[in-house]
Structures are given as C-alpha cells and as structure tokens.
C-alpha cells in the first residue's frame, strides 16, 4: 500500500474520531443545527476520501467546507435576519420571553421592603424546611415547596420555641444548614418558598456565609401567567389580561418587555425604501459609496501603475530597495496606519498642516480643517485610502508588466511608435487583461471598506439637516452600522441586515457587469 494511501486513511480515522466525539456533545447542548452541519460535513468528507470516483474532489472539499462555514452560512444567516424584527426588545424566542415573564414574582405593596432572617433546615429524608423570623409574633416554620406545590402546601406555623434568646434551636430530627451548605444547595433552594398564607410566601433572596440568610415576602402567585389557548398573559398583580400582538404582549396599550423575534417578511425592505427618514440619507450615502470606491481604485491604480512603470526600468540601481519601500504601507496593518493618519491630519496639531503652513502663508489662505468639513473629510479619506491601496496596485502591475512579452514592445518601436504610443496602444491594454478582475475585486473591497471610514472619520462630519444621523463620509456599510445601533430603541439588527443585503446585491451587480466587460477585453487582446 502506498504511503499516501496510509496517510489518507489515517487522516480520515482521526477526522472521524472527532466527528464521533462531537456528535454526543452537540446532542447534549441540543444544538441541532451544529449537529446537522457536522453530520453533513462528515458524510461529505467520507464519501470523497473513500471512493475512487469522487477522490479528485479532495482538492476542493476543504475549501468548500470553509467557504460554506465562513461565507455562505453568514450570508444566509444575514438574509434570514433581514426578514425578522430582530432589534432591542425582540431578541429572544417567544418561549424564552414567556419563561422570563413567568419567572417574575411580585410583592404586594403593604409587604414591600419587609426583610427578615431566614433559616434553612433539612429533615431526615433531606427535605428542606424554612424558619422565617419575621417578628416576635411571626416565627414561622414549615416545609419549603416548589412553585407547583404552592397551592397544596400547608401554611407555615408560628413556632416561638424554635428561637430562644436570639438563638435558633432546631427541633429533633432537623439539621440547621450553614450558609455554605445552603450555597451547595442553592440551585434547589432558589425554587422553593415557604407558604405563609393563601396569598403570601417567603423566599430566600440572600444566602449569607457571614451571617444569617435573608428572606423576603412575595405573592404566592407569579406576576404573569401565560395561557396558551388564548395566547395571552395575565398580570396577577393588577388582574389584567394582555394579548399577544405580533411580537409583544400588550397590556392596556403598553407593550410588555421582553418581546420576541418573529418573521416580518419584507417589512424591513419596505421600510428602507418607503421611509423618507432613511431613504433620503440612503441615496446620498449610496452616491458617495460609488464615488469613494471608484475614485479610490482609480487613484490607487494610477499611482501604483506610475510607480511600477518608473521602477520597471532595467538596470535601475537599488530597484529592489525602492520596491520594498513602496510596498511598506501594504505591510502595516490598516488599523495602525489609519489611526496614525488620523493624528497626522489633525488640523491644529497634525504634522500635515504644520508642513503645509508655509504654503498656507504664501497663498494667504486658512489652514485646511481636515476631517471637519465635507470636502476636506472626503479628500482625506481618499488620500489615506490611496496611500493604503497603491502598494497592492504597484505589486500586481509590476508582476503584470513583467509578463508582457518584450518582443511586442520592440516590434512597436521598430514600427516607429513613440513610447507614449507604445504604452497606450500596447502595454496598457495588455495590462488591463490581467489587472481588470483585480480592479473589480478592489472596487468591491473598498465598497465595504468599513475599517477605514470607521477609524479615520467615523463617517463624519455630520450631514446638516438630514433626518437620521449620517455623515458626509459615511459609506453604505458604515451607515448600516449607524442604523443598527441608533434606531428608535437602540439596536435594529433586522434593518441593518437589510442594508447589507442591498450592498451585497449592488456589489454583485457591479461585479457581474464588469466581469462581462473584462471577458470582452480578453477576447480582443487575449490572443495577441
């Protein structure tokens, strides 16, 4: 057997062990989605690596799996969110919301703030008993019961003999629990209450390991009771019934928090296009997003191309060093360099205005208020992004230039073409064949260049007079971020997802059209 085959099976064996290990884990956590994902991936991997027929797939399968988990799944999930009402007050499922509402208790007004020492006992069969030391007349003792048994429980009895001279004397057969013991049983104790009368119960609310634990009074009925048949909750404190309306229970016109997530169909899309409040800034932002992405690519490409042409001269001294220097901005993480640029651009103390100050003086103009006005902020964003982007363009054009056959250029020279003519007629078109897909990619990237905008200008300066907070340098993705965190009640995840779906559609459209155009280029110049 070949070594590679052994390795393959060994890999599969290890892989399958992980799958087998993961399956019970996902079942324990009831994470059915993850379980199905693991099973599907496991099945695929086994089919591909076991069968000779599908074996060639092995080269793309890992890539496919990563593509699905990190690209396709988030995209699908995003689409899913855009059809929901996911926002502040609506992040839970309905059953989670009902659970939370049903777990609430309430204390009638006359019993509020009554706080007392509460002692916990265990009898010989390890059932829990509470002694509530409310006052001299109410040293109440009884079995602690869970919510289900509250109505059947006996009422607590006044047992003055259990407390003498401030000390607790448990009756025979009962064991007084220390704070530490109570804590060891706290998950059980938090469900128990001592029923004092039909309406009142005592519950432990603070276990003390340094002193006596404390209890509070509350009503025996929970604050809200859910009725599945009528899909409503009843507020037992005020005796009002609140019907479920779409994503909230509504009591007397007031929505009860928390609500829950529901599908809202195309509501978010409709809101985006029909709501003047959002539509106005959206068109403004869309326009600038296109301008930003286009101009950025154009500038970065021009600078990169120019530099690569200049440095492409043969027998240029220190060529490698120059190239290395120009690639440097590409090597520094954008997170760092953008923040540095922000400091450099500070109108009052930044280096840029300091350097420009002689020019300002000669021209007798006010210093440019970088990032503070629409024009200066937009220019600054473009300037910094060009600086960030040109090394990439420089890199790829250098590569592409070197792959252009020299004899073509020589032939042009022989034919008497000037060097400018050679460039525009021969070099540039050939360059575009290999570069244009990358330019499209760069355009799509800058279309969503959140990092730059967020770190450099934060979208600012603010657009005066728009109905939602939006800035002159906001691009679609940073606008959707603002939209997501500053809606009516905070987070509007559904709406923000909708914007990002629209961004996706736009980028898709542009890319498709551009690639078609590129194909044509290839047909024209590809066979030279």
């Amino acid at each position, binding site marked *: 057997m070949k070594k590679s085959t*052994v390795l393959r099976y060994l890999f599969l064996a290890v892989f399958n062990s992980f799958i087998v290990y993961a399956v019970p884990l996902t079942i324990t956590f009831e994470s059915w989605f993850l379980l199905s994902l693991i099973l599907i991936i496991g099945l695929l991997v086994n089919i591909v690596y076991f069968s000779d027929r599908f074996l060639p797939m092995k080269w793309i399968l890992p890539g496919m799996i990563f593509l699905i988990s990190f690209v396709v799944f988030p995209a699908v999930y995003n689409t899913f969110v855009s059809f929901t009402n996911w926002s502040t007050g609506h992040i839970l499922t309905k059953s989670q919301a009902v659970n939370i509402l049903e777990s609430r208790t309430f204390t009638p007004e006359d019993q509020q703030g009554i706080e007392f020492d509460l002692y916990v006992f265990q009898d010989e069969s390890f059932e829990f008993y509470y002694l509530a030391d409310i006052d001299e007349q109410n040293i109440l003792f009884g079995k602690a019961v869970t919510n289900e048994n509250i109505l059947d429980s006996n009422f607590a009895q006044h047992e003055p003999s259990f407390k003498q001279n401030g000390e607790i004397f448990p009756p025979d057969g009962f064991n007084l629990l220390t704070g530490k013991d109570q804590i060891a049983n706290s998950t059980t104790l938090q469900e128990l209450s001592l029923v004092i009368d039909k309406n009142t119960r005592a519950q432990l609310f603070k276990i003390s390991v340094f002193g006596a634990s404390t209890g509070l009074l509350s009503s025996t009925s929970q604050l809200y009771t859910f009725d599945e048949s009528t899909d409503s909750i009843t507020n037992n404190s005020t005796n009002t019934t609140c019907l479920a309306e779409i994503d909230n229970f509504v009591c007397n016109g007031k929505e009860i928090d928390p609500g829950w997530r529901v599908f809202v169909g195309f509501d978010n899309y409709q809101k985006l296009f029909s709501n003047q409040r959002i539509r106005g800034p959206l068109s403004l932002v869309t326009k600038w997003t296109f301008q930003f992405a286009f101009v950025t690519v154009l500038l970065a490409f021009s600078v990169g191309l120019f530099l690569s042409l200049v440095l492409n001269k043969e027998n240029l001294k220190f060529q490698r060093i120059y190239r290395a220097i120009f690639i440097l901005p590409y090597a520094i993480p954008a997170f760092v360099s953008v923040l540095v640029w922000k400091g450099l651009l*500070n109108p009052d103390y930044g280096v840029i205005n300091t350097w420009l100050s002689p020019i300002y003086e000669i021209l007798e103009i006010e210093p440019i208020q970088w990032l503070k006005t629409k024009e200066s902020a937009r220019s600054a964003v473009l300037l910094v992004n060009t600086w960030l982007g040109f090394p990439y363009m420089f890199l790829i054009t250098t590569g592409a230039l070197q792959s252009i056959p020299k004899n073509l250029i020589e032939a042009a020279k022989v034919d008497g073409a000037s060097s400018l003519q050679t460039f525009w007629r021969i070099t540039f078109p050939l360059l575009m064949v290999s570069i244009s897909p990358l330019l499209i990619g760069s355009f799509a990237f800058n279309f969503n260049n959140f990092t730059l905008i967020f770190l450099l200008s934060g979208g600012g300066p*603010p657009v005066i*007079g728009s109905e*939602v907070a939006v800035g002159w340098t906001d691009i679609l993705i940073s606008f959707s971020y603002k939209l997501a965190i500053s809606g*009516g009640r905070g987070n509007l995840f559904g709406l923000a997802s909708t914007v990002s779906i629209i961004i996706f559609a736009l980028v898709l459209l542009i890319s498709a059209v551009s690639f078609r155009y590129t194909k044509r280029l290839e047909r024209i110049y590809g066979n030279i």
Partner: protein
Amino acid sequence: MKNNKSRFIVILLMLSMVAVACGGDTAEEVAETPEVTEAPKETLAAPATTAPPPEVIVVWAEEKVATALDPLVGAYEAAAGVDVEVVVYDFGAIRTDVQTAGPAGEGPDVFLGAHDWVGELAANGVLQPINLASVASDLFEVGINAFSYDGMSYGFPYATEAIAMYYNADLTDGVPTTWDDVKAACDAAGTELCVGAPGGGGGADAYHNHPFVASAGGYVFKVQGGFDPNDVGLDNEGALASAEYLDTLVKDGVVASTDYGASMSAFQEGRSLFWMTGPWARNDASAVNYNVGLIPSFSDSPATPFVGVRGAMVSSFSDKKLLAESFILDFFATVEVQEAMYNSDPRLPATKSLFAIVEAADPIAAAFAASASNGIPMPNIPEMGSVWGPFGDALLIIRDQAYGTNEETGVTVNSATDAMKLAAEQIRTAIAGG
C-alpha cells in the same frame, strides 16, 4: 485484489480508532453522570462529609475591574465553597455578548457594567431584578435611580463617575466659578489653548458636552418617574440659551476644538490650562501637576454633567440566580471588598461607607464626587440609542463652528440654536419612527 485487502485492513484500523474515540467519550459520560444526577442526593445524604463539585459563579468584568476583583474572591470561595471565575471581558462587548451568550445558555451569572445598558438589557429580558433592600441604606440615591427601570432594580451600584475640570496647578490656582471668568484665567496663564474638552475636532462626544446644554434647564429626556422618551428637551429655552453661550465660548477661544486625544495631549504638554474630563484620566493628567475643581457654572446654574454609574448585574439566563445575588449582596457589597476594589481601580464610590473612607483620603476624588452630585444620571432607557448620534453631531457643529447649508436637503444651520433644534427633531423622529 491486494488493494482491496489492504483497504479492508485500514478500514478495520479506522473502526478501532473510532471505537477508541467512542470509548473515551462514554468513559467521560460515566464520569460525568453522577455529577449531574446523583451529586445532589449525596449532598443531602451527608452534607458535611462528601464534597460535591463546587458551584461555579461566572463573572464578566472589564480588565481593570477584573484585575481588582480577582484577588478578592478567594475569601468568598473559601467561605462559601464555590468557585468564582472572573473573566476579563472587553467592556463594550459585555453589553452585546450577554444578550447573545445568555439566551444561548453560555453567558455569565454576574456581570459588571454601566447603568445606561439597563434599559436595553431589561427590555431584551436578559436582566434579573435584584432586591437591594438589604443594602439600600448604604447606597447613594443617584446609584439606585440609575439602575432602576420600569419600577425594578437591576443592579448593585458600586461606582459612579462624572466629569469635572482638571487644571494645571503650576499655572493657575483653581477653576473659576463661572464660565465668564475662564477667559481671564487663561489669558493670565498665557497658555496656547484654554479649555480642552472632548467633543470637538471632528470627534463627536455628547457625553462630555452635556453640561454645555443641560445646565440651564435643558435636558435629554424629562425625568418623570423614569425617563420619558416622548419628552425631549434639547431645544427648550434653557438648552438653546446655553448652546448659544457655548457658541460664544468657542468663538472667544475659551473652549478649544479638540477631540479626546487632542485635549489630553494639550493638557499633558501644558498647552491648555484646563481639561474637562472624568476621573478615569487621572493617570493621564499626572503628566503635569494637576488638580481638580468643579466645572464652572453657567451664570447662576451649576454645571450638570452626565453621571455614569457602574454596577453588578445578574443575568436572567443564569441557572443559579440565588447564588449570584448572594455573591453580590453578601460579598461584593461589603465595604471591605468595595474598599479593596477602590484601592486597585479607583472610581468614585457609590456606597456611603466607602465614600466616607475615600473622602478623607483623596480630595481629588471628593472633587469629582461633588461634581457628580450636581449631575444627573445618563438616561438608561433604550431610546438613548437614538440620542447619542444627533446630540453629539449638533454639539460637534457648534464646537467646530461647522455651520453651513446642506445642498442635498437645503437645510441651513447657521447657529447653535439651529443645530440644537435640528438634533431634537432628529431624535424625536428617530424615536417615533423606529
């Protein structure tokens, strides 16, 4: 044929490995099962002798707080027989992640955060109400109010913070009592800038600028037994008057056009006489010989900074809420823990007992506390999300004098009044429109 045979062997080999994996798994399950089902019974049988696995309380806190808290929890762990796991978490991420991790069953039991999260978290159903009855007498009212939402308490306040005015003690003796006198003080000191305050220089910051619009009757939300999202007072008479006054201060060069970083470096380098920010910046300010005074008042009205309150909250998705609450009330709230926390991460105390200790030892902390006592808590209702953007932008326009006309909408903002009116309108539509 040979190939098939070897493949068969390999498959056998693999099956055995799978079996090993399974075996390991089941072995673990056997080990785990008693933990889950039988352990409580054992506890009941002989609470004193057997040692059940200790309960674990997971606490999320930002780095500084976590570092302060982590060495202290040992005392509670020993006394209560529990494990307290203090997880260092990015401050802002706590707010978002308790909302996703909680419902997914992975969140913390206790987390330390800011009071202005309370509305959002409570509306989302991820906060468990806490009964503060046993500690209420030791708490300042501003702290209790800050953590109240819809009639319930949602957190134990352990620290407050509010901005005040740092001054360079080498160049001046104190902060003038009213803004009218600030210019003269700066002229006398001869610094390049006068007051450095975040919220200008392109960096919108409504928080630091709140005193400039809310000291003479302006407000973000009217307080009527909780904050009323339907009553925005950023364009009432008082707000407009003080915004116009801010405009004058900016035009006179009293308040410099600085964002946070610029205001900090200006103060550190002695280029500005004053720095308007909070107690978290004391380390940064110590680059110069600094002292702290009240923010100057606006003619007769004292400056009202936003008061932020930090507190310990319990997740409603915790399965040991009683333990979590006990940890907070029985341990975290004690003056010993509060004092140790303060010593390692100084913030203005929210408990009276700690304040008494701090006041005597640290006059600068007392100055911040005095400033906070004039302030109002930041609104904790989720509608505040609609406020920060427009509010900050309006003040940025004033601070940077970025008046002008928007060609797209034809709206002109030529004065501080216009800016504030616009912001108030933006906030109202945002709240109404969702």
